[in-house]
């Protein structure tokens, strides 16, 4: 249906105005402060890049986010795939298993992990039982990763299952009837068809992982600090809004760069994030 | 159809009506430099079934879209019963429409789909239900009223779509390649159904297709589209017997084409045979003659005509198809089944002067 420009402007207005005024203006002003304080110029950035923490933590954040994406796919894809194979009742059960943690407060889940991963906690006991005694995951990179993956996994599964449930299983039968074995069918037919979901889910998880604050704060040690925590320190301990604005801009640009790469490389992501026009 | 012999799908009285006329005047649609439709003038008479026939990209679908109101013309006007509706939005045009892929609402059942247009018109619930059931009876699917649309076959879905398009007695029914997705047998059955419903309800139908056989079967009149223009409008017989252009002649039915030149009322084939050219102007031209108008005679006879050798004879039941090889290429003829020509026989081909048409080019 053709829609006049005036109508679309009217439909877009509430969301666009809300985001622009209540979000972009504040972000813009803090980023602006990184260029205007203490005086107009790039002093803030010289300061930030002279500090070895900036690049080190930024690199670590990217790696952790990638790791989280990988693990979420490793756990999430087979799970979402299974959801398409089982009957409606079982599918409902599997869906509930995803939605319940998704709905449970992030604070609560992070603290559940604290108590699970602490020294002599249940996970340590389990590992000791499995023959690896004396391991404490709290305060380690592994602990942070476990917590992050558990929190991000529902986002991946929900995004994937939307895509996977739409894939016509008849195509698989067709491919198999043409002589492809199960694995070839999966890798040559099913997997390519599921890529839009994989990239949408990965992009979502990656972006969310970049901004993780509470989980690494509580499950990790300073050695696992991510960029959000460093920004937090800038603001809360140093009351350095200019520096925080500068770091924010760096994170924003990094994210934009990663997204741009994903968008350029993969059409499905472009379809999701780009113009809604090129459907089908 | 006699009144004592009504079929089970007899029309409900409420659906019967007087169709309206549609006039397209100077209608154009340009996309940048490209003219999808290029200045069309056409009158669609009240109650007739008119087919827009053409290859894909010929402008027939864009024209239908402008009648429906989905596409705004760049120039020109659309009038229904003399009233201009060029800029009226689709939902205020009171047209029925059937789409190629049925476009039934998947979240509604059969009956609520058919009730949909009545609901938009504020028809009370009880009457809505009654009329929907009547429309479903017309398409002989009343017994599936409660079914989910996804449970139905393609043919059934298209009949539901037809019922939905007719239930509110629209002045004009638009059909956009409605049977393209159906198999051949079902398509022919649906064509008969449309003919029946059109005849019984008296609605004006504008039917888009690229299938010339379908167009010939269904239409009161056919408009042949080519490159955004209408080449010819007429009854199937007009078009078949008296094509206005070489394109129309070749697009509809089977034709023999003979290239040659017109010189003072005489058509000279490349090999030198001289035939009547009627009133065609001098210059390079093509002679067109239908196979059933080609007369085949034994070569012994003298008289005018083209010398040929029988190449192939195919028995078709009611008649035979004979392919004759001439110095100007193959010419196909339909001959009576009783005729005993065999491949290799020398024959002489001819036709009544009025049966062949000569077009420049």
């Amino acid at each position, binding site marked *: *249906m053709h829609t006049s*420009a005036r109508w*679309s402007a009217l439909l*877009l207005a*509430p*969301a*666009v105005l809300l*985001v*622009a005024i*209540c*979000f*972009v203006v*504040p972000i813009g*002003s803090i980023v602006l402060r990184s260029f205007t304080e203490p005086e107009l110029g790039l002093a803030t950035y010289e300061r930030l890049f002279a500090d070895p923490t900036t690049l080190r933590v930024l690199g670590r954040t990217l790696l952790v986010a990638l790791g989280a994406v990988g693990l979420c796919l490793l*756990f*999430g894809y*087979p*799970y979402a795939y299974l959801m398409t*194979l089982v*009957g*409606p009742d079982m599918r*409902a059960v*599997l*869906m509930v298993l995803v939605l*319940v*943690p998704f*709905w*449970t407060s*992030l*604070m*609560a*889940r992070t*603290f*559940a*992990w604290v*108590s*699970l991963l*602490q020294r002599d906690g249940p996970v340590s006991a389990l590992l000791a039982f499995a023959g690896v005694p004396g391991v404490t995951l709290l305060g380690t990179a592994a602990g942070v990763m476990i917590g992050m993956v558990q929190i991000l996994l*529902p986002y991946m599964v929900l995004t994937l299952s*939307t895509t996977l449930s739409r894939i016509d299983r008849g195509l698989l*039968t067709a491919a198999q009837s043409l002589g492809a074995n199960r694995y070839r069918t999966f890798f040559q037919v099913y997997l390519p068809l599921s890529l839009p979901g994989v990239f*949408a889910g990965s992009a979502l998880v990656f972006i969310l992982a970049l*901004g993780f604050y509470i989980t690494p704060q509580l499950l990790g040690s300073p050695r696992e600090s991510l960029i959000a925590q460093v*920004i937090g320190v800038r*603001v809360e301990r140093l009351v350095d*809004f200019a520096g925080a604005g500068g770091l924010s801009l760096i*994170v*924003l640009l990094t994210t934009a760069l990663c997204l741009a790469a994903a968008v350029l490389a993969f059409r499905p992501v472009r*379809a*999701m994030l780009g*113009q*809604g026009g090129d459907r089908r | 159809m006699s009144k004592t012999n009504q079929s089970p799908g007899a029309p409900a009285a409420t659906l019967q009506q007087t169709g309206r006329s549609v006039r397209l005047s100077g209608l154009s649609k340009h996309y940048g430099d490209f003219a999808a439709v290029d200045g069309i003038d056409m009158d669609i008479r009240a109650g007739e079934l008119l087919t827009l026939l053409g290859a894909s990209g010929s402008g027939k679908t864009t024209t239908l879209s402008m009648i429906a109101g989905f596409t705004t013309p760049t120039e020109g006007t659309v009038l229904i019963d003399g009233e201009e509706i060029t800029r009226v*939005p*689709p*939902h205020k045009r*009171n047209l029925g429409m059937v789409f190629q892929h049925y476009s039934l*609402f*998947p*979240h509604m059942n059969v009956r609520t789909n058919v009730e949909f247009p009545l609901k*938009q018109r504020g028809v009370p619930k009880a009457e809505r239900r009654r009329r929907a059931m009547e429309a479903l009876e017309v398409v002989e699917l009343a017994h599936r009223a409660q079914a989910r649309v996804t449970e139905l076959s393609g043919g059934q879905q298209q009949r539901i779509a037809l019922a939905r398009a007719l239930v509110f007695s629209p002045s004009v029914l638009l059909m956009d390649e409605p049977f393209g997705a159906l198999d051949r047998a079902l398509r022919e059955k649906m064509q008969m159904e449309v003919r029946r419903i059109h005849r019984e309800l008296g609605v004006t139908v504008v039917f888009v297709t690229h299938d010339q056989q379908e167009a010939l079967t269904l239409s009161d009149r056919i408009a042949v589209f080519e490159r955004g223009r209408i080449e010819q409008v007429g009854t199937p017989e007009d078009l078949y017997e008296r094509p206005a252009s070489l394109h129309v002649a070749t697009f509809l039915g089977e034709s023999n084409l003979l290239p040659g030149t017109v010189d003072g009322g005489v058509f000279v084939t490349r090999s030198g045979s001289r035939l009547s050219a009627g009133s065609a102007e001098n210059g390079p031209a093509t002679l067109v003659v239908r196979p059933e108008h080609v007369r085949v005679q034994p070569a012994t006879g003298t008289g005018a005509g083209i010398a040929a050798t029988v190449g192939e004879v195919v028995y078709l039941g009611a008649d035979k198809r004979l392919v004759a090889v001439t110095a100007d290429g193959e010419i196909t003829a339909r001959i009576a089944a009783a005729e005993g020509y065999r491949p290799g026989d020398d024959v002489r081909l001819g036709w009544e002067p009025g049966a062949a048409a000569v077009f420049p080019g």
Partner: protein
Amino acid sequence: MNQRTPVRLPLALWAGVTALLLVAPTLVVIPLSFTERRSFSFPIEGWSLQWYERFFTDPRWYGALGTSIAVAIGAALVATVAGTLAAIALDRARLRYGWLIRALLLLPVVVPQIVAAVAIFGTYLGWGISGTPLGLLLAHIVLAIPFVVIPVSTALQSFDPTLERAAAVLGAGGWGRFWQVQLPLISPGVITGFVFAFVTSLDEVVIAYFLQTPTLRSLPVQMYSSVTVETDPTIAVASSLMLVFSTIVILLPRFFAARRRRLLKAKETP
């Protein structure tokens, strides 16, 4: 449907591990909420209801719950309406700068919440809405909009536009087409969006932390404060209640759907 691919054992086992990872950590909060000691440590030696009593008698806790739910409902409603309308406009009109608008609307997901929190706090303070319900509501609406736009856009991509043409030519005006055809068909996306938005607001800590006043404190902020200031198992009560509440909300409609399905099946095969 009757032609199912057999589920292989390794796949089922792996999915089982995943399910355990998803659910087990959440369940640990339940026994923790009944602990006798003021500690999060295991094993739990004595049982007590004192933390539940505390949750429901201390206005800081039950008040925070009320604030959280009110803000989450408000934010989710507004974000769902605004986000759905925007997604529709972006889907239909091939706007020249559509991608830019889409990027703008997705921006709140990209920006780390600590940045958003500090920026929003500073700016809202200047506008006099920091520490007011309106300020928190606006921040959460904005944060939730992307979580509506994404699923609704996805739903719109699978929406057949000729259905809308069909509805139009059958007499449905803009509103009719929207309410009777488009919205029902994209409703799974809209509902997902609402749920995402609700959860986003309910879960959000950092911005709410900066915008808080003692009278406007959301449950996550109360939990965070409680945990950073004292070791208080009431947080386990709060999480257990949220867990039970959300499980009920998720399970009920599914339970009814499953029952209806079984009833239908029973009817079809007498």
